């Protein structure tokens, strides 16, 4: 059980039977009035966003999500297949439930699969993943447009801005929290 005092970004609670994650939180107290806790929450199953304001004293059911380390196997149509390396059990997650995580899933990547009542509802990624660039324009030497980045598509189909010196076939590190280019992988 949580109270409003426990509210913070990233907290996972149960509302109306569904697991929600707090994505924004602020404390408010209009002059001489009572303390109010303003939250924005995302339904972890269907992605719906909720704005709710709570008063002190209110409590929440803890969302007990099981996390299991699994390996990403392959994608088939809109489903993503994962395997638990300890017992070889396989599970399937829909593209919608994965959200942006699908941009970083390459074969054999180890992730933490989140399970709610034995149903997989999402994954926790490593903060950084290495992905190969499969398409980007060559660096036009003498380009004087002053542009300091260009689009590049990586092997998962995800497109992001990279520095102009990145070439097709290179391996780059992406920060999965922001979705942005981090560094070039040397070698």
């Amino acid at each position, binding site marked *: 059980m949580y109270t409003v005092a426990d509210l913070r970004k990233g907290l996972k609670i149960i509302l109306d039977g569904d697991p929600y994650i707090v994505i924004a939180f602020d404390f408010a107290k209009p002059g001489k009035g009572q303390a109010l806790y*303003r939250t924005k929450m995302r339904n972890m199953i269907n992605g719906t966003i909720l704005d709710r304001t709570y008063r002190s004293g209110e409590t929440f059911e803890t969302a007990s999500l099981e996390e299991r380390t699994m390996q990403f196997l392959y994608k088939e149509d809109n489903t993503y297949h994962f395997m638990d390396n300890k017992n070889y059990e396989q599970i399937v997650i829909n593209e919608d439930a994965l959200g942006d995580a699908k941009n970083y899933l390459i074969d054999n990547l180890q992730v933490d699969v989140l399970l709610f009542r034995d149903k997989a509802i999402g994954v926790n990624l490593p903060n950084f993943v290495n992905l190969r660039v499969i398409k980007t324009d060559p660096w036009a030497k003498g380009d004087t447009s002053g542009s300091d980045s260009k689009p590049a598509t990586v092997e998962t189909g995800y497109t992001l801005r990279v520095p102009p010196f990145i070439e097709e076939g290179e391996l780059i590190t992406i920060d999965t929290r922001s979705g942005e280019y981090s560094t070039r992988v040397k070698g």
Partner: protein
Amino acid sequence: MTHNWRLSHKRNVLADRACIIGEIRRFFNEGGYLEVETPLRIPAPAPESHIDPLPSASWFLHPSPELCMKRLLAAGYGRIFQICHCWRAGERGRLHLPEFTMLEWYRTDTGYYGLMDDCEALIRSVGDVIGLKERLVSRGREISLQGPWEKITVSEAFNRYTPYTMAEALQRDLFDEIMVRDIEPRLGITGPVFIHDYPAARGALARLKPDDPSVSERFELYIDGVELANAFTELTDAAEQRSRFLHEQETRLSLGKTVYPMPEKFLEELSHMPPAAGIALGLDRLIMILLRASSIDEVVAFTPEEL
């Protein structure tokens, strides 16, 4: 020992903060105010339903210097100001620190309208010192500090910004929620706003309006959606004050909160207090707004989490 990078980068902000506080002192000294210091640790804070003082041994760290400052008024001090730290348990957020800096000033020669003029003059003069040229600019928006600043009653604000009247909001017990969600974010967006005449029950130490006792002579100043100051024409009727404190104590009891002792010395001396008006201004928030910081954390050297 690693270098505290965050702290060293606050130098400019802390220098501006010191400059603002210096100007505030100059403003009040020139206005004939006496700067006072009252004890931070007190035996009996004013009973208020939604303000929780922090205990300090068997006493409390004051949530505001209000009671001692009014005892000074009762003893004949006509214009006083104080800059001091205050404590309120459980208040933490983008605009809240459990230990924060308050500026309070009191005058015996005016009602709450006079304090609105003081706010305008003070904030414009502080703005000049840090080079604001009567306007605040951020994220492509401009907030003009030129006077006169807008005045709107709480009741008008409910009519303008919400589908409820003030009376309906009170009756449905949604006053605070609507205020926070629908009204506050719209106050002070193009220029500072005074929102005034609060429901009588929302000003435990304020005088009721003589021609409409359903509201109190109380205002709040907002700039850019942020509540900066709370002011009222002071209640000077000691019997009425005692009965309101008792009512606040009962509310606390019903909410399961600690009930602290009645401030007897204050009540005894209140009957000697001449008509007066007083105001409490959150200094950290004012500095945050003037420096266009996005959080109160950015304008203090240390937050509680950094200690």
